[in-house]
């Protein structure tokens, strides 16, 4: 034996193996990752992959079959609802495991655990924010509520068993790609994880508020300025429930506290903390037209929920057939049932209500231990808990959180959210979704609804996030309810941070009764359709305060179009759902064009002006005019507001686009037009023209980067949940935008377009920007993306029990019990 070379060679080899068997920074374990028998190559499915299988699920009550069609959409035939949930859990895990679990990590504030601290500790801040908001407590409360609802609990148990049946059969080499990239493994599923997912949706859809920036704005601006910047209602709005509708006499009138002026509305307190907020444009469109307006004489229902555009998609398409019901639509990987869809009798679709259910209270603690706070004239003990935040590659962080009668203390001197500024103030958050509620019950029932009264019964227990539930059935009923548990608020309650030294500012009634929630039936005597697009739900005669975060434009345009169209076919609905008409530009363009000072233009800019003038107002992918228009409007907003807003470092919220447009339409001498930094008094034509010339510079820059057409300039992506470009679908050739029905923004937009005509048999179409498989190594990872971008639809094939030999059936999974 040659001792020296042996040990040298051994050392080098062992060293090499050691280096390849551990992660370096954020890299995967390269040896294992590259090994064709262990690593990512195992995730590369053959393009002719056979999905057939015989699967034993312990405890399944009877046999079940799943038939996959050419798009890998499963058609589940189960003997009963519980078995259907069991199989659904298995399928979600089989095709979407990583995403399902990652979403629950995001919900529970556990991102740092798998991704590390993040840039500028961003992931840690995020995690602390979610924990402090009380996401885990909220999920536990939801679990308690479900445990008192035996049918939903049994379904959740079955769903969990299905997910775990898949996980327990997984080997390390069979793990989804993302686990290998990040070097971790899935935990067993539980009903709590399902509830965490449900609460994540509540965070996404009912987590928005602007209490801090509005509090600052109230302190910084004069009353007159404030009223001009943040009006409570837009002139152009066409509410979900038409103006003039009479509302029930409220059974209860919330009263503002006696100190409302002195301690609240006239208070000049300010806040530097910064919240983590969901996308402000989480919204959606839905509408349903009665048979009177359709060619077939039967109602048509349409829905396109707008969410972050992600791969894998938030949706998983499926049909579930049992002897009791037959439902088709999209489900959430992470929860049982179909969320948006139709059955043999009815169809339903949802949009977000945008009601404000998240309010803050200033807490006065006795000392830095935050163990006692001043409440109703005495020091009251706060409960405290310690959250352990695990951080990949670092020691855990222990976060002490105090809880008050209002709710958890989200911000205190130890946590300022995403603000870098130190603060010695503490704010407790009162958030409706943290209260116990059982939302899954609604979807359990919706699957089986037969008529309008079933639908009402299904949605009556739905609490958060408040939604506009559109409904249509084959008997011809068409309806929409804005349903949720909304606190009854006095005017401007919770618009700003409220005093938390006594109980007078608390929500006086937690939940307005369902009968008083806004609703509408489409009948022969009225307009014959219902619709919602996150606009203000009702006019000002509604007796409760709603908040002010309601975009007006999509709803306005949908109602205009639906009013003017009859003999509607599903094809008409497709062109409406993918319509790129920019109703904001329609209203803003005349104002801009009539105020431009021609003397300041040259030939080049005159040509650009003509492009805007001749534009058909569609934000189409290849148009240049929307690019110019958007630069123009953005500069105008900045030129008008920057001088005032830059006078403070406090976080403020810029006024909505509708606010500025409506102000300028009403008053060409809008006070903010004047630049306070110059002695000269600017006029509207001056600023409009200056903004246009500034836009010309942007246009020249965009031309250099080949970003002169709308699709390229806007640049819509379907982005992987880990934000890895290589796993995303970037640069899609799609038009539309925030004010269009086709609300495709850069990373956000129509996440599922569905059209259901309630004829017999049902005629349905749908598409989502993703694919049925969550595996980036599958040909079904992004199947629908190009078709979605092009505004095309898949015909939804509704399988009947006798269709086993149908040409659509490509693969079969047989499920059996013990």
């Amino acid at each position, binding site marked *: 034996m040659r001792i020296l070379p042996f040990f040298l060679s051994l050392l080098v080899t062992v060293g090499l193996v050691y280096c390849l*068997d551990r992660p370096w920074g954020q890299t995967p374990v390269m040896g294992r990752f590259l090994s064709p028998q*262990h*690593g990512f190559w195992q995730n590369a499915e053959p393009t002719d992959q056979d999905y057939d299988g015989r699967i034993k699920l312990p405890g399944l009550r009877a046999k079940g079959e799943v038939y996959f069609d050419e798009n890998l959409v499963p058609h589940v035939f189960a003997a009963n609802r519980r078995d259907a949930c069991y199989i659904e859990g298995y399928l979600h895990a089989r095709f979407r495991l990583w995403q399902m679990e990652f979403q629950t990590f995001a919900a529970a504030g556990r991102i740092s655990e798998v991704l590390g601290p993040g840039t500028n500790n961003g992931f840690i801040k995020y995690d602390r924010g979610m924990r402090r908001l009380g996401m885990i407590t909220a999920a536990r409360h939801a679990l308690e509520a479900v445990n008192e609802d035996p049918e939903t609990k049994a379904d959740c148990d079955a769903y969990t068993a299905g997910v775990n049946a898949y996980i327990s059969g997984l080997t390390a080499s069979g793990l989804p790609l993302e686990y290998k990239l990040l070097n971790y493994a899935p935990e067993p599923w539980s009903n709590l994880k399902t509830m965490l997912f449900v609460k994540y949706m509540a965070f996404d859809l009912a987590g928005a508020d602007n209490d801090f920036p509005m509090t600052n704005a109230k302190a910084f601006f004069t009353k007159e300025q404030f009223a001009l910047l943040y009006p409570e209602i837009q002139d152009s709005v066409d509410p979900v429930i038409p103006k003039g509708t009479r509302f029930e006499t409220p059974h209860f009138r919330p009263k503002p506290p006696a100190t409302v002026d002195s301690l609240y509305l006239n208070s000049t307190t300010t806040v530097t903390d910064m919240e983590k907020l969901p996308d402000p444009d989480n919204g959606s469109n839905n509408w349903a037209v009665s048979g009177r307006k359709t060619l077939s004489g039967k109602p048509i229902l349409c829905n396109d929920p707008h969410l972050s555009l992600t791969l894998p998609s938030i949706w998983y398409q499926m049909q579930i057939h049992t002897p009791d019901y037959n439902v088709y639509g999209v489900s959430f990987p992470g929860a049982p049932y179909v969320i948006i869809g139709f059955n043999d009798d009815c169809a339903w679709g949802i949009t977000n209500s945008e009601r404000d259910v998240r309010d803050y209270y200033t807490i006065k603690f006795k000392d830095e231990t935050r163990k006692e706070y001043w409440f109703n004239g005495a020091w009251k003990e706060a409960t405290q808990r310690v959250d352990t935040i695990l951080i990949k590659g670092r020691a855990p962080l222990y976060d002490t959180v105090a809880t008050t009668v209002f709710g958890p203390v989200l911000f205190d001197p130890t946590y300022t959210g995403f603000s870098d500024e130190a603060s010695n103030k503490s704010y407790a958050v009162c958030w409706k979704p943290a209260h116990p509620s059982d939302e899954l019950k609604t979807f359990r029932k919706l699957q089986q609804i037969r008529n309008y009264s079933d639908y009402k019964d299904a949605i009556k227990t739905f609490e958060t996030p408040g939604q506009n539930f559109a409904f249509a059935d084959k008997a011809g009923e068409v309806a929409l309810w804005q349903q949720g548990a909304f606190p009854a608020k006095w005017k401007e309650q919770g618009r700003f941070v409220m005093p938390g030294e006594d109980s007078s500012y608390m929500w006086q009634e937690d939940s307005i009764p369902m009968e008083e929630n806004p609703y509408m039936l489409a009948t022969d005597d009225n307009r014959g359709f219902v619709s919602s697009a996150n606009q203000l739900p009702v006019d000002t005669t509604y007796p409760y305060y709603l908040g002010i975060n309601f975009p007006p434009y999509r709803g306005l345009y949908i109602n205009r179009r639906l009013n003017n169209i009859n003999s509607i076919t599903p094809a008409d609905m497709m062109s409406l759902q993918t319509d790129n008409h920019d109703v904001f530009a329609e209203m803003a363009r005349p104002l801009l064009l009539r105020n431009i000072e021609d003397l300041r233009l040259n030939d080049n800019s005159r040509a650009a002006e003509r492009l805007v003038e001749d534009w058909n107002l569609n934000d189409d992918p290849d148009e240049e005019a929307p690019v110019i228009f958007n630069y123009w409007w953005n500069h105008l907003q900045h030129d008008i507001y920057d001088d005032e807003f830059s006078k403070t470092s406090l976080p403020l919220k810029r006024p909505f686009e509708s606010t500025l447009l409506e102000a300028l339409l009403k008053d060409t001498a809008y006070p903010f037009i004047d630049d306070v930094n110059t002695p000269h008094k600017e006029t509207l034509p001056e600023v409009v023209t200056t903004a246009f010339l500034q836009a010309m510079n942007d246009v020249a820059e965009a031309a250099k980067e080949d970003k002169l057409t709308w699709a390229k300039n806007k640049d819509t992506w379907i982005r992987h949940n880990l934000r890895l470009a290589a796993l995303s679908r970037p640069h899609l050739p799609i038009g539309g935008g925030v004010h269009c029905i086709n609300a495709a923004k850069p990373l956000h937009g129509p996440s599922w377009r569905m059209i259901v005509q309630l004829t017999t048999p049902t005629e349905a179409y749908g598409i989502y920007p993703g694919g049925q498989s969550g595996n980036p*190594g599958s040909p079904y990872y992004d199947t629908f993306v190009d078709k979605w971008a092009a505004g095309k639809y898949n015909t939804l094939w509704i399988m009947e029990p006798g269709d086993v030999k149908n040409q659509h059936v490509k693969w079969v999974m047989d499920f059996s019990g013990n």
Partner: protein
Amino acid sequence: MIAKFIVTTVLIALLSFISGLFLPWWTIAAAAFIVSALIPQQPLVAFLAGFLALFLLWGGMALVIDLANGSILSTRVAGILPLHDSSWALVLVTGLVGALVGGGGSLTASYLQKRKPRAKMK
């Protein structure tokens, strides 16, 4: 000589493949070590046998998988690593990483033998 080299190479690849079915990825080093310990060869020859065995095994498996997959995944993973979205580069890197580890295992084993005087041709 050449036959011995080929037999060694094939055996290393075979044992590596079998161990990879049940054991962690790095057992390829052990597989190369064991085979090379049982079939003594000159260090350089042993290294080449281990290197080639794993290059062909890992590169070959990767290639077969990649062809069946139409390079869907390799293009994406090559984008992450980053290898300029090149499937070929990823197959090559896969083969080379396996090859270095396999070669190392074989080389180490070859030093278990005493240095032989240059063998006389029989």
